[in-house]
């Protein structure tokens, strides 16, 4: 099993090592067996990114990098297309019943696992039950909440067996037909729950039956998937190598190899792209954008995304359990200046969690203005008064907190330092701290933090994004630990509806509440940015930032 390193020391050593090694990236494989008839075949793409994956397995989905790398290795029933709607992938097509509670998928025939075994409906059934299994760590589970028997199957004090249920959530009709039974209509089920990778029953059934988490299985060391590229080797914190899978069901991929190169320092990564040591860079440091744009040999694609940058507050603990303090924190910031100066040219000021390219966005809500006077008034209302040094006090305690962000995220570090100054002017005592990625993620997900400048990837359906503020999800995605009964009610009601026109007014109301409550001091909407060797072509850009990686089999070198 992989032990997640939680020591700054180790990660720094790794950074030093990686910096020493990054100058010597691998050259293109000379042994490419060129297709004489089609010059598009062949070539190695080297993709650089700041961190290693947590799991070569599509189920846990800890971070964006997991989503990216697993997209090459694994495949799903549907994928999100450029228009944001689900398209069939492992499925031929699907039928939805009149009451929208029975969904039947017809699977493609002759699809093979990388080890040559046939893919069948039993693999899909196995994947769904694995995600529902409370012993297995998975961030997909909440998206399956509308399945029949969800509560009983996911009960951590002794989950029910599907055999005990009146209606099974998944039924295998035959080898290539599978039926999902929902307890209520759910517009998000197909795009959110079925766009995730399928895992092989023949390799994992015994381990899961033995009560293991996926991270404890040998499978994570030698993963076998259905995706366009198969696993070759993984040097932890260094690189992962994939090779094309000739029997891929959408046709043989053009690229021969993918080398995933871990480059912890983003300014080094930009330099590596410039010198041709890597061919593709995702999420370049904002400070590097202008330099990269000037280069002729580098193409880029920047488009509206779903991601969001902001200061996440732990609303469970004082002082941020008081809405007025959170509002004051936001009024005290000249967020427009911070976003423009530090978070990059491509980012636009955010008013809430839903970006303008999503139908649930509420254009009537304006971001908070910079208003330090209003901030002082709000703190006074909440009972905070300045002492002789100007530090805000209440019951003898200063208004002090620590804002953290990731050690690689230089732009968020700068934004935090700029915010620190605005908050100090208001009379708050603010410390900044930069933390190693896995350490901070673990604390942030478990509520062991005060304030953190975090970028989140949004969900293609707004229900997923809103779910992060539902009190049911305090330990599974609601990282601000925000609890608001009126909001819960609105979100529950919206969940039952399938038509956008019916859902929109409810979500607009939800956005009003979140705007007023400020569990997150929303900063900016993050664009999707990809930077690549000008010879590469064929990318498919979708609203999901990692969506591009689900279509990598269509990419080729046009030399």
């Amino acid at each position, binding site marked *: 099993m992989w032990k997640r390193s939680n020591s*700054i020391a180790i990660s720094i050593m790794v950074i030093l090592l990686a910096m020493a090694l990054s100058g010597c990236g691998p050259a293109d494989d000379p042994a490419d067996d060129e297709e004489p008839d089609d010059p598009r075949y062949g070539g190695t793409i080297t993709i650089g990114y700041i961190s290693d994956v947590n799991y070569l397995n599509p189920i846990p989905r800890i971070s964006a990098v997991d989503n990216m790398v697993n997209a090459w290795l694994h495949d799903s029933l549907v994928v999100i297309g450029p228009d944001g709607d689900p398209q069939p992938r492992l499925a031929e097509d699907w039928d939805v019943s009149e009451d929208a509670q029975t969904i039947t998928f017809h699977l493609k025939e002759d699809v093979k696992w990388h080890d040559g075994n046939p893919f069948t409906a039993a693999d899909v059934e196995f994947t769904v039950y694995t995600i529902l299994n409370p012993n297995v760590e998975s961030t997909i589970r909440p998206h399956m909440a509308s399945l029949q028997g969800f509560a009983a199957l996911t009960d951590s004090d002794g989950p029910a067996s599907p055999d005990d249920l009146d209606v099974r959530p998944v039924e295998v009709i035959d080898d290539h037909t599978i039926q999902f039974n929902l307890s209520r209509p759910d517009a998000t089920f197909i795009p959110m729950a079925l766009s995730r990778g399928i895992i092989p029953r023949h390799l994992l059934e015994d381990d899961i039956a033995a009560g293991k988490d996926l991270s404890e299985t040998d499978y994570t060391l030698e993963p076998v998937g259905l995706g366009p590229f198969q696993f070759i080797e993984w040097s932890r914190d260094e690189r992962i190598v994939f090779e094309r899978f000739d029997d891929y069901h959408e046709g043989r991929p053009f690229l021969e190899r993918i080398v995933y190169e871990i480059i912890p320092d983003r300014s080094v990564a930009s330099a590596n792209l410039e010198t041709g040591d890597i061919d593709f860079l995702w999420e370049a440091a904002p400070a590097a954008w202008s330099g990269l744009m000037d280069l002729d040999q580098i193409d880029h694609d920047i488009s509206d995304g779903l991601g969001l940058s902001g200061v996440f507050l732990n609303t469970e603990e004082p002082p941020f359990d008081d809405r007025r303090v959170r509002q004051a924190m936001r009024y005290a910031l000249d967020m427009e200046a911070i976003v423009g100066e530090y978070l990059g040219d491509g980012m636009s000021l955010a008013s809430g969690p839903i970006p303008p390219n999503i139908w649930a966005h509420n254009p009537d809500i304006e971001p908070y203005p910079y208003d330090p006077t209003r901030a002082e008034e709000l703190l006074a209302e909440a009972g905070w008064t300045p002492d002789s040094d100007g530090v805000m006090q209440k019951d003898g305690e200063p208004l002090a907190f620590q804002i953290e962000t990731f050690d690689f995220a230089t732009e968020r570090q700068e934004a935090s330092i700029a915010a620190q100054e605005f908050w100090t002017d208001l009379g708050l005592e603010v410390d900044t701290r930069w933390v190693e990625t896995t350490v901070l993620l673990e604390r942030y997900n478990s509520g062991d933090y005060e304030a953190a400048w975090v970028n989140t990837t949004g969900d293609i359906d707004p229900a997923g994004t809103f779910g992060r503020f539902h009190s049911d999800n305090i330990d599974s995605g609601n990282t601000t630990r925000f609890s608001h009964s009126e909001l819960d009610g609105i979100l529950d009601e919206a969940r039952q509806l399938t038509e956008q026109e019916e859902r929109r007014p409810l979500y607009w109301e939800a956005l009003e509440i979140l705007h007023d409550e400020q569990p997150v001091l929303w900063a900016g909407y993050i664009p999707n940015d990809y930077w690549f060797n000008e010879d590469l072509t064929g990318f498919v850009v979708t609203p999901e930032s990692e969506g591009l990686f689900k279509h990598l089999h269509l990419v080729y070198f046009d030399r």
Partner: protein
Amino acid sequence: MYQEVLERFLRHKVAVVGGVALCIIILAAIFAPYVSPHDAFKQDIANTRQPPDSTNLFGTDAFGRDVLSRIIWGGRVSLAIGFLAMLLSSVIGVTIGSLAGFYGGGAEWLLMRLTDMFYSIPALLLILILVAVFGPGFWMTVLAIGLVFWPATARVVRAEFLKIRSEPYVEAAQALGASPSRLIFLHFLPNAMAPLIVQMTLQLAQAIVLEAGLSYLGLGAQPPFPSWGNILAEGHMHLRTAPWIATFGGVFIWITVLSFNFIGDGLRDSLDPSLIGR
């Protein structure tokens, strides 16, 4: 004798230049609030990354702060960490080295093996572990560097004590019934001072470099407090668009460390007892 040492030091031209440069830097750091031309902490988002001009001699940083003022204030942090770490390492090193060198035997064996043990741990690794466990900050940096440097001092002191132990004046004092503490403080330490002073000077320079390295990795002085290391670190992100931030930060580390090394050289030559009286 001191007269002679001073004269010999003043003949060492490079050491004198180093001394003068260092005096200016140290005085500027001590009187930072009076000599820095601007507020080193006041951010100005409308005025970020401005190249050097007549108002901001060294330009402004990514937060619109005056780079010169931050370097002057940063000198406080960097020099203070250097001095304090050097002091800490000297206190531990001299104590352990003296006890080992003075008593010899089993005590010496034990103390020197402890020294070897600390010596064998890679410095950066020990510091990273300490900072990872206890969190970064001013005092942690001092403690970490002090803990890494003392074994070298202990060895120097012990080696000197071994030499002194067999000197006739020590045997004479012992014969007169002098107590161990009297022997150590009146006879051993003063005679071990010359190499110790040189060692301390060089360690100070190393400590400043190490502090810069730690701050560069984000493990030293914490924002918004400037140190030369974190000025360099903050500047490195903007090397393309604002090279002056990192450049001036680096130049000051360079001048200071070079000065300390020159002074160390000068002291070594002028304090060398084999040359005294010639």
